[in-house]
């Protein structure tokens, strides 16, 4: 009986785990939807900023700005966006691997790097690998707020314009679609220069209509930091959405796996029980035979 009972106990515990993973999957799905809505709502801002930038670029304004200048990298800053919690498949480890590779590259080029990490998982993983962390953030969950991201961005802008850093790379998981997210390193500073609208003459004519108050270059000066902040914010939003997707997928797989495990445990249990019953019958039969003699 011992074996069958042990199998039954195991089956019960797997069932409990399946309940938990299914609940986590549902929670992750709900959070993913909310995070996705926020991410979609945030696109308007970037779209409008890009439109103004295009207009400025297409009137041929002088687009020289310190934030656009690419300088030789003497000091660099790396911002790593991970999750506060695990149980989300390879989400955190992919980011950490990417970050370690990037830091290794800077180290081999003897460029000191200022490393900031968001998320407990990334903090502990990078500390374990002996990386010096200058900043740690653990307050970003599935709903990063612009008011919380802006001070971080402004600090980077100040450090960049004062020459403390020459480059800012953000390592995060970009969200392409629900089926595809990838860990990437994106260079946010220096900013990519604005492209003139590629619609040809028609767009050019449209932009000629605009007057600029006070002037195109002064607006450019103000709009570039705003554009940087919105791109940084988008990184945080993407990371939040990707984390929820990763957790959703991981928990779905765990639930399915638990189902399979329960099936095979049930089979083993039934077999064990049956063989036990057979054994008992054989014993009784043996006893009856013995009594007959």
């Amino acid at each position, binding site marked *: 009986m011992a074996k069958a009972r042990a199998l039954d106990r195991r089956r019960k515990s797997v069932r409990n785990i399946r309940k938990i993973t299914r609940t986590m999957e549902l929670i992750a799905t709900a959070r993913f939807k909310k995070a996705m809505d926020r991410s979609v709502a*945030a696109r*308007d801002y970037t779209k409008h900023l890009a439109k103004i930038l295009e207009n400025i670029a297409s009137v041929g304004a002088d687009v020289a700005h310190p934030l656009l200048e690419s300088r030789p990298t003497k000091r660099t800053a790396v911002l790593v966006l991970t999750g506060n919690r695990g149980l989300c498949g390879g989400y955190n480890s992919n980011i950490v691997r990417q970050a370690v590779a990037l830091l290794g590259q800077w180290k081999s080029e003897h460029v000191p790097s200022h490393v900031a990490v968001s998320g407990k998982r990334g903090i502990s993983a990078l500390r374990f690998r002996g990386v010096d962390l200058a900043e740690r953030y653990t307050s970003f969950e599935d709903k990063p707020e612009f008011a919380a991201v802006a001070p971080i961005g402004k600090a980077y802008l100040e450090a960049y314009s004062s020459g403390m850093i020459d480059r800012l790379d953000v390592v995060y998981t970009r969200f392409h679609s629900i089926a595809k997210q990838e860990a990437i390193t994106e260079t946010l500073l220096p900013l990519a220069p604005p492209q003139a609208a590629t619609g040809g003459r028609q767009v050019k004519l449209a932009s000629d209509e*605009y007057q*600029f108050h006070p002037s195109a270059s002064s607006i450019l000066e*103000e709009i570039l930091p*705003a554009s940087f902040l919105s791109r940084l914010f988008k990184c945080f939003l993407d990371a939040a959405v990707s984390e929820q997707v990763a957790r959703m997928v991981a928990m779905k797989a765990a639930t399915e796996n638990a189902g399979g495990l329960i099936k095979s445990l049930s089979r083993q249990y039934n077999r064990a029980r049956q063989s036990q019953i057979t054994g008992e019958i054989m014993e009784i039969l043996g006893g009856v035979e013995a009594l007959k003699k």
Partner: protein
Amino acid sequence: MAETKQTGAIRCVIVTPEQTSLDTHARSVGLPLFDGLRGVGRGHSPFIGRLGAGEVRIVGEQGGPADAVRRLFVEGGFVEVAHDSVTVITQRAVPAEKIDASSARADLEKITGTRASGDEAIEAKLRAEDTARALLRTATRGG
């Protein structure tokens, strides 16, 4: 825009990094440009302008009384006016009725109380002071 065909109405959209916080039609819109207020009505020539800290006044919103004013505090940003549509792009937009006047006053006092030395710090302080003052003004002006 097809929806703006209603006589005398212009479309007003306020976009913040987190969301589109307002999308409505109104008779006119008052904008706090960096150097002063500017009113925009139907048929205004297209322009792109820099905003200062101050209040956006939306007058005669569709579906309400003709002289109703909706006021929002914005902290800098940009405005694009074209084709009878006003798009305000700002990092922060707060409806006037949601501003807490006493905390705005406390903020202003805190900023005026700090000392700043060096050109950059003084400039930052003045800017913060302007913003705080504009916030307080929006909060206390009333409907």
